């Protein structure tokens, strides 16, 4: 594949790996512990496992899989709200595919569909709007989900619905924003992080400036990274280079996609339709101030939370579930009490096991061979 294979070149990978190895040794020796780099975005987690990057890197580097999978951080109560909306008579509930299997307290959307709810998988909010256009006698609800990456397309769809005067369309808004969450993680006392791989697609919208406080205030390097395997290795090398040179900066490795100032048209669409919520509940992380958005009052007629009676109950995460500790990087997925036993991709307890971008599902499916081997050794001892 042209323009893709170039970013998967094994020869370039081995020269990058040599450079990474050379930087790692002295850094690890100085700290007396492994270097911990958090990849914030689930897309990076997916790449790291899909291409087997984790076990190509020297042993002194650990990836901490961050909270950047919007499906994974969705709390159970919100899934229950989705199910309640989907089961409302007359409603067609539309959603991205990988949200279908996220467990609610009683059932997932996939189970609600089997029970008779009209749940349809779409690839874009515009597909959901098209369904509304073709089904004037039904109420079509779109499950808006994701960070700034997907927010502009949802916002523009609402504006399109308004332009066309489509009144049987609404949004169940679960969009979240990454910056407050990174801040919450940095404020967490039990955390030891040396640097970040910044989310590429989010940054394509918001640019690189919103991250500056991480370098300035928290003194950690962050490199906005692309998703191809060479992008990931290159970004790791850039983080290590900053550490070796005692620099803390925001660097942009994904310059072919991410402009420094972001996408102003997309940002305008976001701010026209959405405003910050006072707080939003994250699975495993609890409530984080200003970490979610809702629709502005002007667009209340497109807001499913205004249009329908949404139960909005807060459901505690299952007790045995340690998603929060995994998300903060305090424990590795396989160190969770229920990993691979009570919680598997077939019967996910926590959302990290559901989406292919979730750290637990990635470990389970693609397997960190070294990590799992360590675990088996630990179990045997």
């Amino acid at each position, binding site marked *: *594949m042209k323009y*893709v294979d170039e970013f*998967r070149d*094994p020869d370039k*990978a*081995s020269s990058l790996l040599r450079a990474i190895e050379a930087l790692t040794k002295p850094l690890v020796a100085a700290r007396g512990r492994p270097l911990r780099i958090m990849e914030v975005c689930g*897309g990076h987690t*997916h790449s790291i*496992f*899909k*291409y*087997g*990057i*984790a*076990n*190509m890197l020297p042993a002194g580097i650990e990836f901490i899989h961050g909270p950047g999978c*919007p*499906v994974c951080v969705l709390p159970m109560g919100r899934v229950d709200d989705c199910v309640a909306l989907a089961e409302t008579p007359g409603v067609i509930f539309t959603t*991205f*595919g*990988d*949200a*279908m*299997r996220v467990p609610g307290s009683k059932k997932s959307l*996939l189970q609600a569909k089997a029970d008779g709810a009209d749940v349809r*998988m779409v*690839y874009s909010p515009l*597909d959901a709007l098209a369904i509304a256009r073709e089904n004037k006698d039904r109420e079509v609800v779109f499950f808006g*989900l*994701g960070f700034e*990456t*997907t927010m502009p397309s949802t916002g523009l769809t609402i504006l399109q619905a308004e332009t066309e005067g489509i009144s049987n369309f609404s949004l169940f808004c679960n969009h979240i924003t990454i910056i407050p969450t990174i801040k919450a993680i940095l404020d967490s006392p039990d955390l030891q992080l040396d640097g970040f791989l910044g989310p590429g*697609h989010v940054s394509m919208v918001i640019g690189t400036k919103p991250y500056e406080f991480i370098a300035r205030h928290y003194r950690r390097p962050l490199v906005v990274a692309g998703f191809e*395997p060479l992008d990931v290795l290159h970004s790791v090398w850039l983080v290590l280079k900053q550490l070796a040179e005692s620099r803390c900066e925001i660097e942009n490795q994904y310059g072919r996609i991410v402009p420094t100032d972001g996408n102003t048209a997309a940002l305008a669409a976001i701010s026209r339709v959405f405003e910050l919520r006072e707080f939003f509940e994250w699975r495993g992380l609890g409530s984080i101030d200003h970490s979610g958005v809702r629709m502005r009052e002007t667009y209340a007629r497109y807001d499913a939370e205004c249009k329908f009676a949404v139960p909005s109950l807060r459901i505690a995460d299952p007790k045995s579930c340690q998603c929060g500790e995994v998300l903060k990087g305090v424990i590795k997925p396989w160190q969770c009490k229920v990993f691979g036993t009570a919680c598997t*991709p*077939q019967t996910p307890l926590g959302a990290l096991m559901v*989406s*292919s*971008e979730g750290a637990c599902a990635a470990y*389970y*499916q*693609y*397997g960190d*061979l070294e990590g799992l081997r360590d675990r088996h050794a630990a179990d045997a001892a």
Partner: protein
Amino acid sequence: MIKFEPTLPIRPQRKVRDGIHVPKVTLAHGGGGKAMRDLIDDVFVSAFDNPALVPLEDQARFTLADLCRHGDRLAFTSDSFVVDPLEFPGGDIGKLAVCGTVNDLAVGGAKPLYLSCSVIIEEGVEVAALRKIARSMADSATAAGVTIVTGDTKVVDRGSCDKLFINTAGIGVIRTGIDLGAHRAEAGDIILVNGLLGDHGAAILAARGDLHLETQIESDCSALNGLIESLLDACPEVRFIRDATRGGLATVLNEIAEASSVGIEIDEKATPLREEVKGFCEILGLDPLYLANEGKIVIVVPPGAAERARAALQAHPLGKDASIIGRVTSGVAGRVVMHTNFGGKRIVDMLVGEQLPRIC
């Protein structure tokens, strides 16, 4: 030697009388009366026309002696086909229903001989479309050297099924001396596939139209009994063959690893994929290893037979892109590992359900 003699008269006492003069199937065509007979005669009997079928008894009959000429064990299989859309680039539900069952017999080392054809039709389906599908089944059966000898027709209310469901069962005879099984893989064995993977799955997803993607990808739907016969002629020591249908290559490899309690390693570089399929998967966030195939088999052979097997496959038009993709190891039992192009390793596990596209 007992000579094969059909137990029933060769020529039909029946011929198509009125045929069907309405454009669409109605519930009347499933009522057991004259309308149903007209549907069966017009659509199915006229397409499948053969001595075993035409008397339209409640069962087809064959002499045992004839079956015995082909080997020493019977193989019997059944498969249902519910594909949407009914017609897709590279085939249709009729061709799929014949090839699928022929392949299920052939991968067991059997010579496929007789098929049944049961259809469940949703009222409102166009008779012309049915005729076309029945014709496609007949052509595929002729090409594969099998006969459709019995069948059944039901018509259900609108909404009770999606246009047309077809079930085909098949009988074949396993040649003497051939013993294939998923449990027979041993460390050191070599794994091959007969060509490019994922075409069917990608073609079907694209043909549904809701992705708004235009592709040139065609389904690989084909009957593989000829290919398998020449493979077994050249390589009777083959240990296992399975068609990589739903769940794709990844699922079959996991089944082998589990059944034989062995590890499996495959090489991404050697895994044959069309550029279009790679691009299609890249855009949709799908993994081609899990895409369905309808004309691809996974073959396990002892190390000494690998080159011979590859040559035999490549000599056949349906095996020209055959490739050695990996080997059986004494590694962790049940685990399939892929060496990525990029130089890393990853586990290739079974899929839980359907592949769901990622959000971003």
